[in-house]
């Protein structure tokens, strides 16, 4: 099964934020990049394939013309498009997009912030690249809007092409179809704090295909695999739904605390879940003509740490990495 490897040290600890780990494997260079958010800074580590060499960078949130901002970063993730990779940072003030090495900012979008402070926080969260049709990056906001940005193959001519307004609560996570097959109609799923899930088809005009109602709990992390929505909730439950019909395929009482991260592999049908209960679990997903099933495969306990990020490090799921609140390490596990 999996066993724990030597951790990667970071310059600062991870903040308690949803989905607080993004991993970019670069197969041709034999490198893996990791990003973890700490307050208003993003820790970027690039690790060599042999696991012996690391280089660190810290990227500070920059907003518009202000060189270094103190506004908190809510999420940092790589968005992989056919011709380029962008690092997208979302914060309390807006959305920043950088070239994948984090050095050059190519785009900045300010959120509408009311003149007088209102009782509700303003921020952006939930970044994903929708690549099935065209080149889009979608980012959610605290008002429930999903901003759709059209991204050219190169250059900085990024435009906000559409705003999707189906959610009324802050967006928590957005994901796109992970299977390589083109047979699935649903391209993207967005989730919010009330637990509502919206299923979309990407394109010049994004089309709402279905809405899966909330069952009473905030949905903190979602994945879309072979037309199945996999949702992790604040109650610690994971549910599998059919994206187009909304039928529940499975309910897993997975964790004893709020789920902070989900990830799945496009090959080998594995699912990874991490929660505040300090546990990380691996599940096997399978499809049969009668139903879809979920099987528990493995559990790791990161003692006394509330997990805030969990990601597979490669498409086969032979390794995964985990971050936790107040922890200055990225903990890694590999399949033996």
């Amino acid at each position, binding site marked *: 099964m999996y066993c724990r490897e030597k951790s990667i040290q970071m310059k600062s600890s991870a903040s308690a934020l949803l989905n607080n780990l993004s991993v970019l494997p670069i197969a041709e260079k034999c490198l893996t990049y990791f990003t973890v958010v700490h307050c208003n800074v993003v820790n970027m580590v690039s690790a060599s394939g042999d696991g012996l060499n690391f280089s660190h960078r810290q990227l500070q949130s920059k907003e518009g013309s202000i060189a270094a901002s103190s506004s908190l970063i809510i999420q940092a993730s790589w968005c992989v498009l056919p011709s380029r990779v962008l690092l997208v940072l979302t914060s309390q003030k807006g959305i920043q997009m950088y070239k994948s090495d984090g050095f050059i900012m190519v785009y900045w979008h300010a959120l509408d912030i009311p003149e007088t402070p209102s009782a509700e926080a303003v921020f952006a969260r939930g970044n994903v690249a929708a690549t099935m049709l065209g080149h889009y990056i979608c980012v959610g906001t605290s008002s429930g809007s999903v901003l759709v940005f059209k991204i050219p193959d190169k250059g900085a001519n990024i435009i906000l092409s559409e705003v999707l307004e189906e959610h009324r609560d802050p967006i928590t996570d957005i994901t796109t179809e992970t299977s390589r097959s083109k047979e699935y109609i649903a391209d993207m799923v967005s989730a919010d*704090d009330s637990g509502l899930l919206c299923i979309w088809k990407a394109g010049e005009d994004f089309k709402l295909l279905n809405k899966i109602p909330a069952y009473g709990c905030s949905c903190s992390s979602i994945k879309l695999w072979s037309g199945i929505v996999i949702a992790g909730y604040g109650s610690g439950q994971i549910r599998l739904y059919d994206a187009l019909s909304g039928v529940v395929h499975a309910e897993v009482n997975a964790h004893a605390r709020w789920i902070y991260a989900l990830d799945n592999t496009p090959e080998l049908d594995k699912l990874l879940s991490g929660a505040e209960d300090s546990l990380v679990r691996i599940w096997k997903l399978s499809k049969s003509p009668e139903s879809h099933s979920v099987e528990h495969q493995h559990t790791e306990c990161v003692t006394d740490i509330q997990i805030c990020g969990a990601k597979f490090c490669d498409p086969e799921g032979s390794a995964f990495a985990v971050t936790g*609140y107040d922890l*200055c390490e990225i903990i890694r596990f590999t399949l033996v």
Partner: protein
Amino acid sequence: MNDIITTMFNKTFMEELFKPQELYSKKALRTVFDRLAHASIMRLNQASMDKLYDLMTMAFKYQVLLCPRPKDILLVSFNHMDAIKDFIRDSPSIFNQVDEIFRQLIEMYSNLPAGEFQLIRQTLLIFFQDMHIRVSIFLKDKVQNSNGRFVLPTSGPVPYGTQIPGLIRMFSYNGDEMKKCEFPNGGSYTSPLQEGSFDLYGDRILKLGTNMYSVSRPVETHMSGTSKSSASHAKENAAPNPLAKEELNLLARLMGGLEVKKTTGSESGFRVNLFSTDEEEEEAAILRPSELSYQFINIQATQDQQSNEELARIMGEFKEEDPVSLSPCSKGDDLLAMMDGLL
């Protein structure tokens, strides 16, 4: 106690607190704390004050971190409020004031959705990030490890609204339950307790936020062996904050409303020493690593009070002046004298 509670629940101060605003910086919070601690005839010197503050922050970090569900941070606050009300139950005027604030808390927060509470909790956790000061009572009770991290048990009741992990239910395409499967959950969890009360009176169920000292024990905090991470947190403290001036103005407004307790010559007052002897206290002050010392903001309260209407203009000028002057707590009397000037 009455003095501290009366000062803390002062109407103007509370009105300011209830306004939507960003998290206080560490310096700002420490200054407010000092002010509150000196609102009575109690006196602490720097070393004891630092220790008390460390104790308070680590205790609150523990409470916020260990909350089973995000909404439980409100129950923690209600436990605090219940204890406060108990202290002043014989003083009707301050009791009414505290009661009123309690009602406002209920009104403002009871109906917030869970996601909002999680966001509040995540923001509070940012304040406490990288603080690993060891607290003797926590070490003794085995809720904190020797590395300063709190123990997260994988046992005990699950939060209200959560199921005990271990069950997988699978359904056929037409929605019928088809199969049930169990897996080992890796812990020893039990059913949730009933939900705590969010009313003015009621059983909160949650123990976080209740009196840690209900069994008396000696209290110490350990300075030695604090890890590198504390130093990095302190460095963050010292970095220039462009909003420092705005915060100071806010503090001045807050403190303008706080009454001052004078120690006259005849009153002996009482000095609180959190160490076993006076010598130990002095030694601790000398030995305390400099990066862990809290720097004080000397507030020109009189000046700013006069320019209240100019605050908006001042806040617009984010100049990198040096508003922070270091002034050790033994000059606490100076601060008090300054406050006196406001009355």
